[in-house]
């Protein structure tokens, strides 16, 4: 008996809309839901109408030309880890994903689609089911890595279109539960893991004590809300919750480098779920928290800890979302480390990191952030055996956990299958350590390593610099 297997994309596209956490937030009277900053799903049959109105209102020139500029050449299919992992499933191609929103744009805004919709494949969504399918495609089959964008001969920003679609759906509450939950935390607590101020301060104090004990001096500190410092340090909440060690490592290195620094009591989260959910208002709120903290504390610059989307959001996108020009300079902590190493402020011995190390470029840092060389220069100084993975820099493959996918458990099985591309790339290096300057990539890569049984461990740059320090 012959059996037809549905393409893997259908297993994502057909997932129903789950609004249980939204209902819970309503019952619990979550502040951001009460005051309307975070939308919840309204089953009143008017979502298509709202969606189309939002589509028109949010359109800008960059998006409009990316919508119209695609020639359906299909070259982007070779760039995406989803379509590479599922070559027989046309729905995995970036252009096919973007076409799901492009056809609505054509029918609703572009004249060709309004005159002859069937000729150009223009079509409006009919009901919430259609919008839910769109949700599953743009959230579940794309990590927003932008590899397709940089490989499009026309310069079409497919990842930008996908984020745009995410933003429209977020405003209708047609979102994966994970996206809703994390957005809720970030709106209501100012950080995406809902860390309380008490926990934050306690963890910093704990790490300070650890570093004091290690260095045998009380002069080392993790200052909070100190004015007029050389820099303000903003981190990923994952560091407080799961990896406080990285804060201790940073504190130790900052102390040795001899620059004054502080962390803010409020506005310390450099991550930004607005980038993933497409919610520019959330993006503006979170980014402005950090910008305002720097201004309030008269910091000379903002230093962003090792986080890919945090770097992209804080360093680049946040100003656009918040509608303000950058006034305080900012940089990744890896750039700071590189400078200190160059200036001889830190003494290191690469022999202390003898295992073969490879470097994974975070999509948000390399393709959307412009940093590719500094991490390599740092690693060249602190590791004895550095090996490039292929491809690398702006051509590297995503860790597969980008775009907020780590928070969306329902898409995990397909994500991990698509990660076969990444697994092969990692394995080919023969390295024992894969270093990345992104907390999100740590979790994404760890998932890949576990799933494919690779003999590797994920580390960060701070960790390797710390291990190589000659005190």
């Amino acid at each position, binding site marked *: 008996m012959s059996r037809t297997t549905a393409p893997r994309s259908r297993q994502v596209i057909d997932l129903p809309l789950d609004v249980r956490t939204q209902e819970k937030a309503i019952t619990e009277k979550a502040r951001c839901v009460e005051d309307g900053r975070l939308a919840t799903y309204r089953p009143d049959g008017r979502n298509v109408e709202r969606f189309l109105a939002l589509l028109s209102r949010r359109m*800008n*020139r960059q998006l*409009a*030309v*990316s919508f119209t*500029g*695609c*020639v*359906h050449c*299909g*070259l982007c299919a*070779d*760039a995406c880890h989803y*379509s590479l992992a599922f070559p027989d499933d*046309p729905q995995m*191609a970036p*252009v*096919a994903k973007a*076409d799901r929103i492009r056809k609505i744009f054509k029918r609703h805004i572009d*004249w*060709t689609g309004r*005159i002859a919709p069937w000729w*150009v*494949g223009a079509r409006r969504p009919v009901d919430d089911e259609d919008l839910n399918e769109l949700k599953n495609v743009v959230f579940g089959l794309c990590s927003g890595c932008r590899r397709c*964008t940089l*490989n499009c*001969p*026309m*310069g*079409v*920003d497919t990842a930008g279109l996908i984020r745009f679609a995410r933003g429209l759906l977020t405003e209708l509450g047609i979102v994966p539960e994970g996206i809703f939950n994390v957005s809720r935390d970030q709106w209501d607590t100012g950080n995406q893991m809902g860390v309380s101020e008490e926990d934050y301060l306690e963890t910093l104090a704990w790490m300070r004590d650890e570093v004091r004990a290690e260095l045998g001096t009380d002069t080392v500190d993790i200052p909070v809300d100190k004015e007029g410092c050389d820099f303000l340090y903003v981190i990923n909440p994952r560091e407080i919750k799961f990896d406080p060690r990285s804060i201790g490592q940073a504190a130790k290195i900052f102390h040795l480098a001899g620059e004054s620094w502080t962390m803010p009591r409020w506005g310390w989260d450099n991550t930004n779920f607005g980038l993933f959910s497409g919610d520019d208002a959330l993006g503006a709120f979170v980014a402005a928290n950090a910008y305002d903290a720097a201004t309030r504390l008269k910091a000379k*610059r903002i230093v962003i800890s090792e986080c890919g989307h945090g770097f992209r959001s804080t*360093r*680049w996108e*946040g*100003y*656009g979302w918040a*509608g*303000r*020009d*950058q006034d305080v*300079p*900012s*940089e990744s902590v890896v*750039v*700071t480390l*590189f*400078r200190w190493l*160059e200036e001889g402020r830190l003494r290191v011995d690469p022999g202390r990191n003898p295992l073969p190390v490879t470097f994974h470029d975070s999509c948000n840092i*390399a*393709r*959307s*952030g*412009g*940093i*590719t*060389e*500094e991490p390599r220069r740092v690693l060249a100084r602190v590791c004895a055996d550095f090996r490039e993975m292929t*491809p690398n820099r*702006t051509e590297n493959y995503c860790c597969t956990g980008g775009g907020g996918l780590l928070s969306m458990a329902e898409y995990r099985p397909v994500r991990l299958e698509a990660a076969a591309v990444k697994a092969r790339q990692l394995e080919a290096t023969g390295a024992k350590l894969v270093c990345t300057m992104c907390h999100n990539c740590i979790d994404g890569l760890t998932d890949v390593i576990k799933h494919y049984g690779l003999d590797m461990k994920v580390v960060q740059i701070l960790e390797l610099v710390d291990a190589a320090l000659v005190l």
Partner: protein
Amino acid sequence: MSPFLKTLENEVQLICLAFLALVYILRLAWIFRFRSARDRGLAEGSGFRGAGYSLGSVAMPWAMESIRRRPFFYIQFVFFHLGVVAAIAATFIIPYAPGLFEKRFIVRGFQIVIGAAFASGVLRLVRRLSNRTLRSISRPDDYASLALMIAFFLAGTLAIPNHPEKGEAALIAFFGLTAFFLVYVPFSKICHYLYYPFTRYFLGLTLGRRGVWPPARGRRGSASSADGTAAGRPS
């Protein structure tokens, strides 16, 4: 030359050209109607250099992995677009500078280029029909645009010797298709060349400011300075 062909080569072309220009102006106005977004972070690199790199990538087949992996696709692309330029030039040469096509080597040169474009077009159509992903994303406009271009190249190759006295069919087909194109193009995907400079410019501007493009290896890094330049990050 029959009066019909004469009118088709001249007045009809000019009217259709004027129509094309008008629709393009409207199309540009439509694009500019949308507000423009911009990066507001202090620049690490030059937006204009990035835009230049982005626009120039068409001539840098090594710059993009997707093209690097498919050199044959790039060669087809080059022939196809050279053919477009040659065929368009021919639509002006035949009515306004016919003397040029009295030189045999020029005619041959045009025929080779446009003939190669014809072959590229056929290969592209085969690819579109045989590749599952391409088939699934293709709309009637994708097929029609390609089929029309193939017909245009074929008619152009045959019409270029410009001998109406030996038969006008090829010339009528060529100029008939040209007139049709001038009216149809703004509504079809062939119009992509109007958007191309915008998409590439916008992407290049953003990535240039961020120091992603042009790709530079071996940069030194430090915090961007408040005056918008990249202190210590010579590009």
